[in-house]
């Protein structure tokens, strides 16, 4: 111990300023001293700061996350590993997770988004699964904000640039614009992989004497303190204090992916984990914690890209495309041979020990010696104060009397279809390869993507959803709606949910109002998960999404995965042929609070989000799934932003063939705008042949799902009697080009 922190390199001595700059509070520092029984050295301080950061330790969210149901018949691995795992039968499992890369993407949109994709891919293949599909959930500021087009095109090409190059199809996602995200965009990336049930790998370091092997790209000074950056709000200051931005290298990732999967066919591997946030430090410490062991690292052996890197930098670097693995003693050469084949570095950098210490050496001297538990289970946990904000009541007050119903509802419909949140997202997803791996049965453009599983009759359905505006107005209901909508989107293609993953994007947890939002959202999500029977198997929390004291809308995004037993029994949203009956599942209610219509047409974000009865929701979904499974349904599309009007329009115009018109008549009496654009939940528009109506009605009755025939497919117009009648070609033109025209209008094409 005498040599701890000694030469060969100088470490700054620790003072209050250094402690603060590491994002540690005074209390936290005291605790470190207590645990160690001495002052930490600079390198150790760095290690604590990243491991105790919000990003790695979940210190503010842990107590709330416990609320979520994580068990279910299909769940093989819940939260706590690199990704969650569900059983899909035939000896196969689906491995999936979602991660945020919000802050880096705001600083450098292309690379930030690209490395976000890289990180989530590694989380999946580290478990032995081959990634077969990705999704992304994006939030940008107002379209009129000068930075939005730049950020949007950078993020989208970064996601494509990385995912396409690695050969994983991006099959869906969501995209939403609102002022609330002007200075804090959200980039959440989701990936799913398939593995054999017998061949799942975990991030664990077990067996004293086994080797720690570093594989992949070399280490540079990239993103040092990225994890602490993700745990801080933005300010002028932090923008100046930019760490070296991480640049993604998808080619190396692809090699790493293939090499790891090849290695996993053999029997050398004990555990494996990618070096994500907090790099080598967190991968080594987390693996040791899970294995109940210690680790010993020789930092002098780590392959470096830059000269004169200090142990501090080596431990904290967030260089991409790297993995740490634990191999059985004596199998090191087998590992090296495989990585050599793929032209990658594989270097033994340490070993597993019995002493439960995290130790690191540099040039022969011990530079870090910390009990592993101090970095994992003994990290601080906070139950932060939460309080409903003063203005919440006012926010929810919406006086519809004062809002005029537009005279020309057809024009209003067009306005909505053209608005960035509703317009077709084709400009985005045509930049993503969604065909590679030849599994894509339903490509982007539907409620959920459908990916067949080769060698079986089955398919998986994937979707990602969340509405921050609803959560802002009522976080509890918003939490419910995020889960309900995701499940409904799966139901619309005919899939039964297996599990979900989430990204919880919020402001600073040090604010009571934000903590209130957080706990409300989680309670809502929990209630929905329980009623709809969907366990949470993995997820990610991103706090500190705020700038100059203004947090974003509380924005949980939910990535949900469902199973279809027969791939050919699936549905798509668009109308199939003239003469089909149009049936509304669920009920229309007079609700406009939080709607896209209020925002776009009246500039109002107020009221309460739509009401929801989870039993009704369940009934509607079950009815839709069963009818699809029986082959009764020709198209199904749920209602979300823009309500009935927009949904019907999308049914008419979103297909690959020529648009089809529709004639609809509604029975309920209510204001025209609420009828057309209200966003009442638990509604699905399905079409079927007339002769199937009785069979369908039987299913609906049995499930307790309200239904009514509201019209018929056909003609060249979208006609909702007596409110609107617009040629579908016109609707298609505004909807299809909406996003691109706005982008061009801003004169940004780079």
């Amino acid at each position: 111990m005498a040599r701890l922190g000694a030469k060969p390199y100088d470490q700054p001595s620790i003072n209050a300023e250094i402690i603060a700059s590491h994002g540690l509070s005074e209390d936290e520092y005291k605790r470190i001293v207590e645990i160690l029984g001495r002052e930490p050295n600079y390198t150790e301080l760095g290690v604590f700061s990243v491991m105790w950061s919000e990003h790695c330790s979940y210190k503010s969210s842990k107590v709330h996350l416990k609320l979520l149901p994580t068990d279910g018949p299909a769940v093989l691995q819940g939260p706590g590993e690199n990704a969650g795992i569900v059983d899909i039968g035939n000896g196969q499992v689906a491995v999936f997770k979602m991660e945020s890369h919000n802050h880096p993407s705001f600083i450098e949109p292309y690379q930030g988004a690209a490395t976000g994709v890289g990180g989530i891919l590694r989380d999946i293949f580290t478990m032995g699964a081959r990634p077969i599909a990705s999704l992304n959930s994006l939030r940008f500021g107002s379209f009129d904000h000068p930075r939005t087009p730049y950020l949007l095109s950078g993020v989208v090409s970064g996601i494509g640039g990385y995912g396409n190059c690695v050969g994983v199809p991006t099959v869906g996602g969501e995209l939403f614009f609102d002022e609330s995200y002007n200075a804090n965009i959200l980039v959440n990336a989701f990936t799913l992989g398939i593995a054999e049930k017998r061949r799942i790998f975990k991030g664990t370091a077990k067996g004293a004497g086994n080797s720690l092997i570093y594989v992949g790209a070399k280490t540079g000074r990239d993103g040092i303190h990225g994890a602490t950056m993700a745990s801080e709000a933005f300010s002028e200051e932090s923008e100046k204090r930019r760490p070296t931005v991480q640049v993604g290298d998808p080619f190396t990732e692809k090699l790493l992916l293939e090499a790891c999967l090849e290695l996993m066919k053999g029997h050398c591997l004990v555990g494996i984990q990618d070096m994500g946030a907090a790099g080598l430090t967190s991968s080594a410490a987390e693996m040791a914690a899970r294995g109940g062991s210690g680790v010993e690292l020789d930092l002098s052996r780590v392959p470096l890209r830059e000269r004169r890197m200090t142990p501090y930098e080596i431990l904290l670097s967030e260089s991409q495309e790297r993995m740490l693995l634990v191999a059985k003693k004596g199998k090191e050469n087998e590992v090296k041979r495989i990585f050599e084949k793929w032209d990658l570095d594989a270097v033994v950098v340490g070993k597993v020990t019995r002493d439960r210490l995290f130790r690191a050496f540099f040039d022969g001297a011990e530079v870090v010696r910390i009990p592993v538990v101090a970095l994992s289970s003994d990290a601080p946990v906070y139950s932060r104060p939460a309080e409903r904000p003063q203005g919440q009541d006012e926010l929810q007050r919406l006086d519809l009397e004062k809002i005029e119903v537009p005279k020309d509802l057809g024009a209003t419909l067009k306005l909505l279809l053209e608005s960035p949140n509703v317009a077709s997202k084709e400009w985005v997803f045509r930049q993503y390869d969604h065909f590679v791996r030849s599994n894509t049965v339903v490509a982007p453009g539907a409620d959920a993507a459908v990916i067949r599983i080769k060698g079986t009759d089955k398919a998986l359905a994937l979707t990602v959803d969340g509405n921050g505006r609803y959560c802002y107005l009522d976080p509890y209901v918003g939490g419910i709606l995020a889960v309900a909508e995701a499940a409904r989107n799966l139901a619309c293609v005919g899939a039964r949910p297996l599990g979900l993953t989430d990204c919880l994007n919020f402001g600073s947890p040090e604010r009571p109002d934000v903590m209130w939002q957080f706990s409300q959202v989680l309670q809502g999500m929990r209630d929905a998960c329980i009623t709809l029977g969907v366990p949470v198997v993995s997820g990610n929390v991103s706090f500190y999404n705020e700038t100059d004291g203004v947090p974003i809308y509380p924005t949980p995004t939910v990535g949900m995965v469902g199973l279809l037993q027969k791939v050919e029994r699936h549905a798509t949203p668009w109308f199939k042929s003239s003469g089909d009956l149009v049936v509304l599942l669920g009920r229309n209610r007079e609700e406009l609070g939080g709607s896209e219509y209020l925002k776009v047409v009246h500039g109002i974000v107020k009221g309460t989000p739509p009401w929801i009865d989870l039993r009704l929701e369940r009934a509607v979904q079950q009815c839709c799934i069963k009818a699809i499974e029986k082959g009764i349904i020709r198209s199904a599309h749920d209602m979300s932003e823009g309500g009935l009007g927009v949904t019907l329009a999308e049914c008419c115009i979103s297909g690959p063939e020529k648009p089809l018109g529709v004639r609809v008549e509604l029975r309920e009496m209510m204001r025209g705008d609420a009828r057309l654009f209200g966003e009442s939940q638990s509604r699905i528009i399905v079409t079927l042949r007339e002769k199937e109506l009785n069979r369908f009605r039987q299913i609906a009755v049995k499930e307790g799902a309200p239904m009514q025939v509201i019209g018929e497919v056909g003609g060249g117009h979208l006609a909702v009697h007596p409110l609107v009648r617009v040629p579908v070609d016109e609707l298609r033109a505004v909807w299809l080009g909406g996003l691109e025209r706005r982008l061009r209008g801003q004169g940004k094409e780079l």
Partner: protein
Amino acid sequence: MRVKIFVCLKDGVLDPQGKAVAHSLHSLGYQEVQDVRMGKYLEISLDVPSRQAAELKIREMCDKLLANPVIEDYRFEIE
């Protein structure tokens, strides 16, 4: 006036393209290659009265559009 602009990744920022080219050159037998960095090269013709004016404008364009200050440095030559 013709201006040549070189945009390169900052020192310390990973250059995957340079890395791959270096690897390729090595496997082609060029062991004498020690390091490769890859960047962008732009030639711009400008209609301005003076070198000074050109310099001012080009610097502005680089800061605004041509280089990404977060990861790139630039240099230029006026002919």
